[in-house]
């Protein structure tokens, strides 16, 4: 094991780049280590076919950000997210959401919410996880529940997002319209600070 760790090279493209240059092809551009050459990763055909189907259905509305082995990431606007989710559920047989994670991007003034969808019913999709990302506008002085940081809830599409969306609401202040109870879940009842997972909330001493 002379030099196993491959230096992460400065990559020119961010994930927000269009799908014409998928990041999955990037390992090929990294210099292979001396002992063991990393095999060039092809774009897996099955995953590519799923991504193509979604792109064909919603041309222009969705953006396929990367297609890796077993993993696909799709980005869409907040107006279309319910439609896309319904399509994914009914046509592509993704039947449940594994996690809902919010990511705060203060530089872009947006909060991204990523739904990781999986499938139990379709054995072909068992090892597939589709990340459905959408973004909500972000305000400097948040007032959770009453400001413009809003997204439509996917609870009627995927029932399993109920608690995840509640968590996302309290942790990032993203209000999900149409969610039956947007109550507080994990934080103390008297929490009156910023939503803690935003980047401008700093832990003490850090």
């Amino acid at each position, binding site marked *: 094991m002379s030099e196993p760790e491959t230096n992460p090279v400065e990559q020119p493209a961010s994930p927000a780049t269009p799908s014409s240059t998928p990041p999955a092809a990037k390992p090929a551009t990294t210099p292979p280590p001396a002992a063991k050459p990393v095999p060039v990763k092809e774009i897996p055909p099955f995953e590519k076919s799923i991504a193509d189907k979604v792109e064909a259905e919603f041309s222009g509305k969705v953006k396929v950000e990367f297609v890796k082995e077993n993993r696909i990431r799709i980005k869409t606007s907040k107006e279309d997210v319910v439609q896309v989710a319904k399509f994914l559920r009914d046509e592509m047989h993704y039947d449940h959401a594994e996690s809902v994670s919010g990511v705060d991007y203060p530089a872009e003034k947006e909060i991204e919410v990523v739904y990781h969808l999986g499938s139990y019913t379709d054995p072909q999709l068992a090892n597939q996880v589709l990340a459905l990302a959408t973004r909500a506008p972000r305000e400097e002085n948040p007032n959770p529940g009453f400001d413009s940081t809003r997204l439509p809830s996917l609870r009627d599409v995927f029932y399993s997002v109920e608690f995840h969306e509640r968590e996302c609401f309290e942790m990032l202040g993203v209000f999900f319209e149409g969610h039956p109870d947007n109550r507080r879940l994990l934080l103390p009842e008297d929490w009156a600070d910023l939503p*803690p997972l935003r980047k401008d909330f700093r*832990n*003490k001493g*850090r």
Partner: protein
Amino acid sequence: MLKDLLTPQNANVFVGKLGDVLVKAVDQPLGYAINWSRLWSLWPVHIETACCSVEFGAASGPRYDVERFGIIEAFGSLRQCDLVVVQGTITRKMAPRLRLVYDQMPEPKYVIAMGACAITGGLYFDSYNVLPGIDGILPVDVYVPGCPPRPETLIQGCMLLQEKIKRLKAR
């Protein structure tokens, strides 16, 4: 000369001495018995606060059976308990509840802070939702360090508490 001795002051002193003797006579064996009973019958309240409860459970399991020391494996109602083992991290949501539990217990009551998180906040010193130790909300009798402390350490903490009860004055 006898008249000199029988002043009201001296009578007072005599009665006081007699009272002292009586109090001492009753207090010593009673205090001994009460302290002895308290130290062999510590019933912990059934409150889990974080992950140290795993090791607390292991301590009441067969290998580290704490019932040998008269500590019954966690008790249901807190009205009958006399020991709070704070098993790990206290979050801001849990802190008022912990205090409530402590307040509802009958005197005398003892607190063992188990684990680094309960002592100083431990690994979570910089978390936004974790108290830096429970000193602010409860009077702690024994600190049991470790993350999490092994059951032996917990048992040693209980024995230290027993030593402490021996030295306390029984009320």
